[in-house]
């Protein structure tokens, strides 16, 4: 443990770890030293000069090394003639800090005055008004009157788009460089910088597209003035009009803690709507950050296209009907189908929803199917990372392996956390057939061919440099994804990973174990509850008499087709929108968005977290679990349908992994470091303090001391590229055509057109140029797509993003034809 030192700040005795900065030690003691440039998650730079304080240090006799005492036997103090910055000076034994002395206060006041000389003072029209550190500090420390002539202020542009998501008001910027430093130090995307110098210094981004980073929104939280605003929220509302509700981001398996800010909105006919998404501190999950997808892709729930009435098919058409009639039709069909009922649900749903769906299926002996083409969730239940795992504590002695996943695109906050662990000294091994951003921080990069995933991981337990590092490291975590893999392949990969961890003793402990980079937020939850994906979904469907589809659009995604219209099962679809699947359904049940109700999700790290209702539900909709309960009632089965928390209690009684847990437990919090909130937003930014629950890390079989038996790795016949054909490889992009992203207009530029990526030599072989549109045929479908060039992939493959309108869930043969002639 680091040595503790005792010092005095404003007369108060404080004990803090040696080396901690004065500003942080004061914070611990409940003393808020004002700061602008300092941020507890970044290196101190001491540039704004807001935190000026007086610091005295005990005088030491050079010869004896002992403290010099005054006439009263007290250590003599030496104060520097200059004020010092609390943000750059580490604490030391016997130090005396004065933050409120006349001299210190004069220093702080002068800094505020200097800043205001070039500040436009346009608080009444500023988005930050009400949560602005500059405003707060001016009130607390500033001069009463301006001595600077208003006419002599420099006037600068107020609407500079740094990219399509973030705007800069040059007049309001106080040059604290927090945004630049965040992008450089924390995010690793150094796409912001200062141009010019002195008073002409301005923030700029020269990247193309502008401000090219998926973490850009965080800069608006830490900007201590209203200089950076999001295109989404700017001019949207005043912070003090907003209500806040805690939630969990449902965009990916990281499970970032967020806060929805809501307000009654005239534009929405006086309804309460979400105005913005803010990070909520959870140091073990997302610290104080979220990615731009989480921040901006939330508008879908407001869509005018939402279903708000149950529908049933009559004479080939879907017509509106009552809940009673719709659920009766569904219930009757399910009762009739008995074991030929298939419940197909995705990890978009909460645990409570999935639990009820499973209970319904079990009643008639039906089958539950997880809508996913990635396997291994049963293995993460066994050897997933141990309770207490925290990327934030990984560093020297830890090894992190990332295989078949592009974390920057698939789980941005994990990318950020893994990067930081690597910077703290963790060994990072990145294995992927193509270059991914994370490689920059890797100690070892393993480049394999698509199809060689399993062997690559198995090599980790053989001889060799990388294997030695892996085996010998104190802690090891493997994150596996599904890049280039279908269900079979990913299952085999997960098994290989699980075995590698188990064989080297890296299971059942914190900071050890397996993590699935799932495609949906609650895939892990679905596995825990008993849902399993099916290799051949179509044949399951073809054999079914009734299918209950919830939170999935298999017909829209091209995963299911109606082959024989006469022998089509009875289809019930439960969703927010009239999806392709809904269009062919016999019954459509309008569900609530997760922002409108409560529930729990399980993250990829197997953290069980609670989300709360942020806005009132759209009239005419019901929570998924409630709908299922009503359908069940029609079948003569009683399932809890009124309260998510009661369902959870039933689950806790029923399922050992949830044993002893309840909603109250999930809502527990403890103090976190750094301390955010506490009124002085200038310290941590506008990130929300976590008052609504840090969640609970589930323990796993290995962690409970059970002996785990792992399955053998199944041989998968990997497809290899063939002469004159391309092997289409599924990859995952952050911004895709998923329903949530597509409804976020702001992100539409970033999604771009449907594309494939080819190696330059492949492009040449097929006579295709970068930026050209070609016809891609795969799986019997032809689509027009744009061609991008990627030099890091092998010549025989074509990367095809998932959820971009092309039906791809595993490696498939494909061919491309240039459109050139047609174009001319």
């Amino acid at each position, binding site marked *: 443990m680091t040595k503790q030192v005792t010092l005095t700040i404003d007369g108060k005795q404080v004990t803090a770890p040696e080396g901690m900065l004065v500003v942080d030690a004061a914070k611990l003691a409940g003393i808020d030293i004002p700061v602008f440039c300092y941020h507890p998650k970044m290196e101190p730079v001491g540039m704004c*000069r807001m935190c000026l304080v007086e610091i005295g240090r005990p005088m030491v006799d050079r010869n004896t090394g002992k403290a010099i005492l005054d006439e009263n036997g007290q250590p003599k103090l030496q104060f520097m003639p200059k004020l010092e910055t609390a943000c750059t000076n580490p604490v030391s034994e016997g130090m005396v800090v004065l933050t409120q002395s006349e001299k210190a206060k004069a220093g702080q006041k002068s800094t505020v005055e200097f800043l205001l000389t070039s500040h436009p003072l346009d608080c009444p029209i500023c988005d930050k008004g009400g949560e602005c550190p500059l405003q707060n500090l001016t009130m607390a420390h500033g001069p009463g009157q301006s001595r600077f002539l208003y006419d002599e202020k420099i006037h600068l542009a107020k609407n500079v788009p740094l990219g399509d998501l973030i705007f800069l008001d040059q007049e309001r910027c106080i*040059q604290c460089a927090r945004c630049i430093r965040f992008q450089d130090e924390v995010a690793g995307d150094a796409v912001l910088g200062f141009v010019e110098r002195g008073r002409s210094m301005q923030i700029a981004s020269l990247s193309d597209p502008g401000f090219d980073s998926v973490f850009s929104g965080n800069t608006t939280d830490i900007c201590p003035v209203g200089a950076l605003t999001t295109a989404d929220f700017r001019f949207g509302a005043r912070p003090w009009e907003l209500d806040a509700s805690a939630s969990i981001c449902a965009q990916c398996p990281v499970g970032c803690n967020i806060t929805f800010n809501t307000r009654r909105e005239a534009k929405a006919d006086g309804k309460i709507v979400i105005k913005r998404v803010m990070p909520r501190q959870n140091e073990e999950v997302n610290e104080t950050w979220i990615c731009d997808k989480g921040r901006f892709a939330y508008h879908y729930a407001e869509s005018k296209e939402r279903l708000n009435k149950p529908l049933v098919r009559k004479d080939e058409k879907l017509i509106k009907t009552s809940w009673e009639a719709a659920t009766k039709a569904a219930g009757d069909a399910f009762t009739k189908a008995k074991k030929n009922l298939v419940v197909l649900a995705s990890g978009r749903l909460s645990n409570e929803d999935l639990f009820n769906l499973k209970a319904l299926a079990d009643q008639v002996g039906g089958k539950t199917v997880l809508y996913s083409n990635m396997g291994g969730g049963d293995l993460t239940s066994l050897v997933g990372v141990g309770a207490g795992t925290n990327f934030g504590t990984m560093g020297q002695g830890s090894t992190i392996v990332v295989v078949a996943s592009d974390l920057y695109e698939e789980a941005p906050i994990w990318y950020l956390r893994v990067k930081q662990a690597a910077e703290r000294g963790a060994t990072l091994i990145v294995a992927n057939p193509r270059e991914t951003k994370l490689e920059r921080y890797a100690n070892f990069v393993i480049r394999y061919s698509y199809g060689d995933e399993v062997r690559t991981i198995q090599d980790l337990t053989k001889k060799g440099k990388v294997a030695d590092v892996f085996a010998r490291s104190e802690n090891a975590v493997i994150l596996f994804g599904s890049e280039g893999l279908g269900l079979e392949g990913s299952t085999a990969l997960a098994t290989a990973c699980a075995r590698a961890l188990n064989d080297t003793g890296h299971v059942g402990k914190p900071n050890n174990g397996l993590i699935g980079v799932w495609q949906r937020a609650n895939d892990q939850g679905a596995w825990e509850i008993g849902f399993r994906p099916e290799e051949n979904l179509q044949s399951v469907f073809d054999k079914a008499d009734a299918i209950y589809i919830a939170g999935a659009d298999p017909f829209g995604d091209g995963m299911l087709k109606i082959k024989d219209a006469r022998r089509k099962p009875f289809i019930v679809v439960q969703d927010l929108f009239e999806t392709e699947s809904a269009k062919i359904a016999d019954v459509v049940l309008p569900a609530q968005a997760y922002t409108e109700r409560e529930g729990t999700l399980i993250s990829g790290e197997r953290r069980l977290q609670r989300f709360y209702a942020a806005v009132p539900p759209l009239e005419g909709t019901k929570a998924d679990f409630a709908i299922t309960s009503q359908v069940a009632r029609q079948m003569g089965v009683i399932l809890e349908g009124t309260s998510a928390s009661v369902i959870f209690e039933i689950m806790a009684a029923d399922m050992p992994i949830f044993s002893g847990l309840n909603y109250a437990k999930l809502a527990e919090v403890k103090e976190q470091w750094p301390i955010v909130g506490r009124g002085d937003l200038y310290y941590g930014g506008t990130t929300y303090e976590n008052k609504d629950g840090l969640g609970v890390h589930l323990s796993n079989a290995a962690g409970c001391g059970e002996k785990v038996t792992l399955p053998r790795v199944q041989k998968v016949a990997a497809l290899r590229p063939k002469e004159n054909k391309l092997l289409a490889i599924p990859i995952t992009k952050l911004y895709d055509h998923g329903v949530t992203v597509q409804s976020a207009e702001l992100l539409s530029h970033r999604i771009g057109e449907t594309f494939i990526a080819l190696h330059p030599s492949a492009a040449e072989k097929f006579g295709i140029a970068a930026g050209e549109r070609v016809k891609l045929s795969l799986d019997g479908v032809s689509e027009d797509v744009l061609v991008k060039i990627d030099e890091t992939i092998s010549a025989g493959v074509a990367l095809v993003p998932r959820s971009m309108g092309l039906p791809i869930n595993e490696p498939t043969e494909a061919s491309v034809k240039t459109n050139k002639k047609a174009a001319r």
Partner: protein
Amino acid sequence: MSYVLLRHRDIADIDQIDVYEKNGGFEAFRQTVTRMKPGEVTDVVKASGLRGRGGAGFPTGVKWSFIDNKSWPHYVVANADESEPGTFKDREIMEGNPLQFLEGVAIASYAVGANAAYVYLRGEFWQIAEFLDKKIAEMEQAGYLGDKLFGTDYSLKIYTHLGAGAYICGEETAMLESLEGKRGQPRIRPPFPAVHGLYGKPTVVNNVETLTNLPPIITHGADWYKTMGTADSAGVKIFSLSGRVRKPGNFELPFGTTFRQLIYEYGGGVQDGRPVKAIMPAGASSSFIVADDKVLDTQMDYATVRTLGADLGSASVIVIDDTVSIDWVINKTIHFFKHESCGKCTPCREGTYWMSRLIDRLQDGARSNADVDLLLNVAKQMQNKCLCPLGEFSTMAVVTGIERFPQDFRKA
């Protein structure tokens, strides 16, 4: 007396390697590498009383002894940024006596265990950099730079690096940032370069003139060096004399020479025979010294000049006569510092800008005593709060100008 530093004024073609060798060139370096331990070199330099010529006057040997020997590699960076208005001495050394300077770099490198040294030149010294590159190549050829020098295990490479127009890069930590390929903005100190310098490694930064003193100190010894100058400031100094004198230029003189000697004996007196009104002994960063007979007879060394309420700094003596109004002078200095403020810290960035608006107003004739008071107040408000000395420098002439020459500012 013959020159110690500006030896090209005595010896023609001393920039040629053979001529330099004939005049004892590289013997000092050979001696250090083959016969002295690094620590011994440092001790000699400490004993000589040599103080840094870049402005701060910090004892050179003491600075070297701070180098952190737990962290490697070490670097030496020669500060050839020379951008203080009124300073033009390093330039003459590098143009006239480049080999002695480079030999000094080599000796310093050996003393602190550096195998690579950079000469950071201001971007305007483009031609000097090309010239030094040539000299470095010749030294490599002649075996004074490269691997296993003089048959020992010691190796050294010297590289030049051109800045691109930024006074702040003369500040040592800004220089290191610049050398690392970043914007030249100062770092917070501590840690000092001796612990965390170039690329985070222990680094010694010394001024060109400081380094050029090293070969003769090694050759003739510390005691010889101390025979020149004063007890406080040993040795010789190049005084860059500019402003309203008849013969501006560089003058290599022992510390302790008086202002009067410099201005009248060497500088030929003031133009048009006017009296000296004020002296800025350290370029634009100076405090004004109100000139009178007593002041003119004051010895120039670090300690004595301080008794006049100013610093000797890099000894760039700007002479101002009674035809010049001090408010015009500080108009120049304020605009200089506003232009050169790197922008990193608030008081300097905003303060220099604010001062420039105020002095513009005063210069425009719309002068009010309230504005003078405000200017003085703003300058004082900046003091002791800036991140690096540049911001502090910008206030010196303003505060001392208004306080010491009130008649040039205030309306009766």
